[in-house]
């Protein structure tokens, strides 16, 4: 029906119903005229209008009760359809990629998923929306999940953690393959040998859980799987209780009504394995599991559950009143086992067997005794064969169980167990900066890691017991780097601002130990109560300070001759015999692991091509190389490596500095962050793209191909950019077209050629290069013609940051041995001299003038367009903030512009705005006035919150000439590696694996 048609029908209908009933037909007939269809249409509506019985009139009542019903009763069902959409393959929940739906039920869906961090299959149990919506229930659930996650037993399917992502809450569970015991029993009773083996493992699992005070509450064949290897896994441990408290659990404690069953079938199933006290809704203890265990054991042997009835009430009656029929047990069932079953199935729990360990021991005895007692046979003629058979059985049984249980013991004492710690999305592991971001306490019980915070400053620290799901942030710490533990595991040391500090693990005041200059490069707390630490300062290597605080003393200094750039990542050997450390050299791929003999003061290189070494008490030196951990036997007395390194862990996150994100406890627990080598050549993490971002945060792609870009600067005409690109270990400068896709290479020196910027006339590029061994400043014509001109020849690395608009002065910074980073001023030869003339390299090198210097770090200085003010970053207040001073008379004024942390300032080209990156990593703007008698700054305002890459000490963004958009750098891979929540992998008993895989050859060689 057309709109027009309907309008006519409607109008006529509405006009007609205003009339008395008796006149209506005539009115319609006359109004419709010859349009018979119209008449019929309106007539039919009139008929319906008269139909008072129409249910719409009853709807308000109906609706009332239905509403109540729908709102009150609805289970997950309604919520699911409305607020959660089923996850589809390929969808990601945090680091987990959904592969397939395994099952769904009233308590949510279970998916097979791929853990992209740890490269393994997991099961994700997605919580129904009511959980996510009810904070109380969620908190309760989280607590339970924490407890359950502490269960670490080969026969218990592990709970890895709880993942929260975009409002989806999911339990991350071990994915267990293999049929369930229910399916095996469906094929008939199990052979005695097999039943004993399964029951033994089941008892072992229950014992382990009961020891921790965890009751399963829902032991049944459907919750037990058997892998092809024969290993039994108990599923859904304790989840029956976790689900408890869901609205529909009107009979709390009754697993059949609250259990996390996958299908309606089991949900509605009979309470076949329910203990009498459970059936009576009494409070439960571990003995309810013993009952259920007895039921399962009985069913394995007989093929039917001891109290199974036709209906629920039959089953309940049997459970409460009847004794199991033990004549159904096979004749060869050992008496011991018959006794065990009876004791498990005592109706009064006070008479019942009270520990799973006792059950396990009984089964062990039955397995071990060569001649098990069986029921006396009715016929003496059969005695002989039975005894023989039993004898044989005993032997076979022992062999079978032996095979089942001992293989790990023969190969290695304990198999290392691995589990992941996934931090909450709101509190991601912070992996910014050049240091290790986590530490494990020497006693192996606690983990400390950097979390949240920003990507340009430090971050708070989280302490977490290794077997718990949640952590505790340490108070009063906001900008920490490189946490480390004291040997007694009671203190955590860290760098913050310009100080080395410590804090008790139990919480307490933060204590400052000493100051330092430069950036931190690791620290280690020795048995002699001193802390050895390292900084990026080029004139000093390792420092040592008392762990009670005081004056720090220099321990080593980098040697300029072999181009040592810094000494980093100290690790004090036990009993203070020496310090392992990393020597960074000019070449990116050739750091060295060295050791300093603290008795003689001598140092020697142990490994070439390795970094961030630690000593493990198994007698190994572990170090990082190209994203993997390697180990080599090491003699801490003679400070010698013994043999060749072997790769033992792959895919460990490394920093460009050589730091590797791993830690080892004294008992041999390894904790590491899986991931790429940050900034490594060819690493996928280093492929970045440029985007335009406007002031609303809207992104526009720039078509330049993804490369390992460094900081870029937009050309004065706004059409192009100049940028350093890391490729095959060298950084070269390229010029790109912001409209097109082309890049043109400008420099052809090897090594580092970076931090390029345009002269104001757009004709030349100023950059830094280490072509002579030290990072100095150079310039080259943007069109590639002419020679490269050297601007400076300082002895410490010099970074360019800004050029005055007249092109006469260049501003940069350099890290000085004594005063840290200082702002420098370089005179540039007149710009006109460069034009056209293929002049020979300038003979007049610019001597740097100090512009801003203090014992604090000043860097990223940028001159205002009118050249009246200098904006720069400094940590003089204890954290990085943006400051402004008059130029060139810098001492004549001083303003702090940022308030919540600030670094990497940039001026708008109209000079009326100053931008910077704030403490949270957000781009921030401050309206400023530079034309008046004094500098005036408004309050800072966030431009956009999105965090973009700001990897190394440089401004990684630029402002378009009109000030409307910002050139930002993004990782081409998923998200920013600095802020993407990373997980940590814990490998318990790793030292055993280490011993096995990297045997100490000394015993062999001494033969």
């Amino acid at each position, binding site marked *: 029906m057309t709109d027009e048609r309907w309008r006519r029908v409607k109008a006529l*209908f509405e006009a007609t119903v205003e009339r008395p009933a008796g006149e209506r037909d005539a009115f319609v007939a006359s109004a419709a005229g010859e349009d018979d269809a119209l008449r019929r249409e309106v007539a039919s*509506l009139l008929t319906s209008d008269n139909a008072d019985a*129409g249910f*719409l009139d009853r709807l308000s009542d109906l609706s*009332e009760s239905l509403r109540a019903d729908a709102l*009150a009763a609805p289970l997950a069902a*309604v*919520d699911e359809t409305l607020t959660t959409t089923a996850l589809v393959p390929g969808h990601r929940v945090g680091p987990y990629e959904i592969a397939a739906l395994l099952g769904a039920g009233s308590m949510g869906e279970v998916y097979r998923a791929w853990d992209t961090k740890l490269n393994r299959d997991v099961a994700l149990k997605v919580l129904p929306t009511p959980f996510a919506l009810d904070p109380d229930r969620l908190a309760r659930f989280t607590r339970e999940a924490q407890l359950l996650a502490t269960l670490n037993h080969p026969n218990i399917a592990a709970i890895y953690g709880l993942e929260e992502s975009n409002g989806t809450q999911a339990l991350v569970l071990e994915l267990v393959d293999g049929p369930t015991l229910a399916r095996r029993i469906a094929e008939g009773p199990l052979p005695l040998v097999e039943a004993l083996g399964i029951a033994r493992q089941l008892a072992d699992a229950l014992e382990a859980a009961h020891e921790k005070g965890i009751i399963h509450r829902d032991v049944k064949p459907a919750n037990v799987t058997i892998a092809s290897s024969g290993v039994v896994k108990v599923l859904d441990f304790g989840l029956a209780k976790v689900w408890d408290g869901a*609205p529909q659990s009107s009979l709390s404690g009754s697993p059949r009504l609250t259990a996390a069953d996958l299908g309606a079938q089991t949900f509605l199933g009979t309470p076949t394995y329910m203990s009498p006290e459970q059936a009576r809704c009494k409070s439960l203890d571990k003995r309810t599991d013993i009952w259920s265990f007895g039921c399962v054991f009985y069913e394995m042997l007989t093929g039917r559950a001891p109290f199974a009835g036709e209906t629920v009430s039959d089953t309940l009656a049997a459970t409460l009143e009847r004794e199991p029929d033990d004549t159904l047990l096979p004749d060869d069932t050992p008496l011991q086992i018959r006794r065990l079953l009876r004791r498990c199935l005592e109706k009064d729990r006070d008479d019942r067997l009270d520990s799973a360990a006792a059950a396990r021991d009984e089964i062990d005895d039955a397995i071990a005794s060569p001649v098990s007692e069986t029921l006396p046979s009715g016929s003496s003629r059969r005695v002989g064969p039975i005894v023989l058979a039993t004898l044989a059985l005993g032997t076979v049984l022992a062999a079978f169980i032996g095979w089942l249980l001992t293989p790990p013991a023969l190969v290695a004492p304990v198999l290392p167990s691995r589990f992941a710690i996934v931090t909450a999305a709101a509190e991601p592991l912070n992996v910014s900066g050049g240091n290790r971001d986590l530490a494990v306490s020497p006693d192996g019980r606690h983990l400390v890691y950097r979390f949240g915070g920003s990507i340009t400053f430090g971050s708070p620290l989280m302490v977490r017991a290794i077997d718990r799901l949640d952590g505790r942030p340490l108070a009063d710490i906001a900008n920490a780097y490189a946490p480390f533990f004291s040997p007694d595991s009671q203190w955590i040391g860290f760098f913050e601002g310009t100080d080395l500090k410590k804090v008790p693990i139990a919480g307490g005041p933060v204590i400052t130990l000493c100051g330092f200059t430069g950036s931190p490069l690791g620290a280690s707390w020795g048995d002699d109560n001193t802390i050895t630490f390292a900084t990026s300062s080029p004139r000093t290597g390792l420092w040592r300070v008392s762990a009670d605080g005081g004056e720090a003393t220099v321990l080593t200094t980098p040697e300029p001759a072999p181009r040592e750039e810094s000494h980093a990542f100290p690790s004090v050997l036990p009993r203070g015999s020496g310090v392992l450390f990393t020597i960074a050299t000019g070449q990116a791929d050739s750091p060295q692991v060295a050791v300093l003999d603290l008795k003689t003061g001598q140092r020697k290189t142990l490994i070439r091509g390795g970094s961030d070494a630690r000593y493990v008490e198994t007698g190994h030196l572990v170090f990082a190389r190209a994203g993997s951990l390697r180990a080599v036997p090491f003699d801490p007395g003679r400070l010698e490596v013994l043999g060749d390194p072997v790769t033992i862990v792959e895919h460990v996150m490394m920093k460009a500095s050589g730091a590797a994100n791993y830690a080892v406890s004294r008992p041999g627990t390894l904790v590491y962050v899986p991931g790429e080598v940050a900034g490594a050549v060819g690493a996928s993490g280093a492929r970045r793209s440029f985007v335009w971002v406007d002031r609303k945060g809207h992104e526009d792609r720039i078509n330049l191909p993804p490369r390992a870009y460094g900081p870029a600067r937009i050309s004065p005409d706004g059409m192009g950019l100049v940028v350093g690109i890391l490729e095959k270990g060298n950084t070269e400068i390229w010029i790109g077209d912001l409209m097109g896709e082309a890049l043109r290479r400008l420099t052809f020196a090897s090594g580092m050629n970076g931090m390029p910027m345009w002269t104001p006339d757009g004709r030349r590029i100023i950059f830094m290069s280490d072509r002579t061994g030290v990072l100095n400043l150079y310039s080259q014509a943007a069109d590639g013609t002419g020679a490269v001109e050297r601007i400076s020849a300082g002895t410490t690395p010099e970074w360019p940051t800004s050029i005055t608009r007249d092109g006469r002065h260049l501003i940069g910074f350099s890290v000085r041995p004594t005063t840290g980073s200082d702002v420098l001023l370089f005179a540039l030869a007149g710009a006109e001299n460069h034009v056209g003339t293929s002049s020979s390299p300038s003979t007049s090198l610019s001597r740097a003038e100090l512009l801003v210097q203090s014992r604090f770090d000043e860097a990223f200085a940028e001159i205002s367009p009118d050249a009246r003010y200098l904006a720069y970053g400094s940590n003089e207040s204890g954290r990085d903030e943006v400051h402004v001073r008059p130029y060139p008379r810098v001492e004549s004024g001083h303003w702090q512009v940022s308030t919540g942390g600030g670094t990497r300032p940039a001026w708008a080209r109209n000079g009326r705005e100053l931008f910077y990156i704030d403490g949270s990593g957000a781009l921030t703007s401050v309206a400023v006035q530079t034309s008046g008698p004094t500098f005036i700054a408004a309050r800072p305002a966030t431009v956009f919150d999105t965090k973009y890459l700001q990897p190394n000490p440089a401004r990684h963004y630029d402002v378009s000439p009109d000030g409307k958009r910002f050139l930002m750098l993004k990782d081409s891979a998923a998200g920013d590696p600095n802020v993407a929540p990373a997980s940590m992998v814990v490998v318990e008993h790793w030292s055993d694996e280490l011993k096995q895989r990297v045997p100490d050859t000394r015993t062999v060689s001494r033969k």
Partner: protein
Amino acid sequence: MVAPRDITVLLGNWGRGDEAALNQLLPLVYAELRRVAARQLRNERPHHTLQPTALVHEAYLRLVDQRRADWQNRAHFFGVAARVMRRILVDHARRHGASKRGEGVSCLSIDEAKDVAASSEVPILALDHALDRLEKVDAELARVVELRAFGGLTIEETAQVLSVSPSTAKRDWRTAKAWLNRELGSGARP
């Protein structure tokens, strides 16, 4: 969590015809209705039925920043709430119908279909479908039905939400009822 202020903005946007705002509002209002319902159920006597009007009012007070609230916000909110209630009832009916024929049974025999058709939930589903059809014919009428039948709004409230006079709302309601009764009256529709 979206702040009350944002809800006010979303309501305003929806009032100005931004359908995307509605999509953001629906889950928020839904969740709040559920929370309020759950709390009322916990606190009230057993067997006490929920008062939808009270429910929606409480949800409204909790969700909308009252300092910035005006009668338009309120009208828009009730509009959204009616939409949400419709979805809750329809989904519930669908589920209930499904559970009658048992989980895992994906197709029905003719006899089963008759049973299901005779159950009390079906009018809701049928009404839902009929409303969908009505919306194609006359969206305004469909809105009136939604507000009245599912949102429990009075004629006056309905008029406010739709920015029409009460007499128009009343007339529309009557026409819509006639249309729907005719649509639903015959059980033998294909």
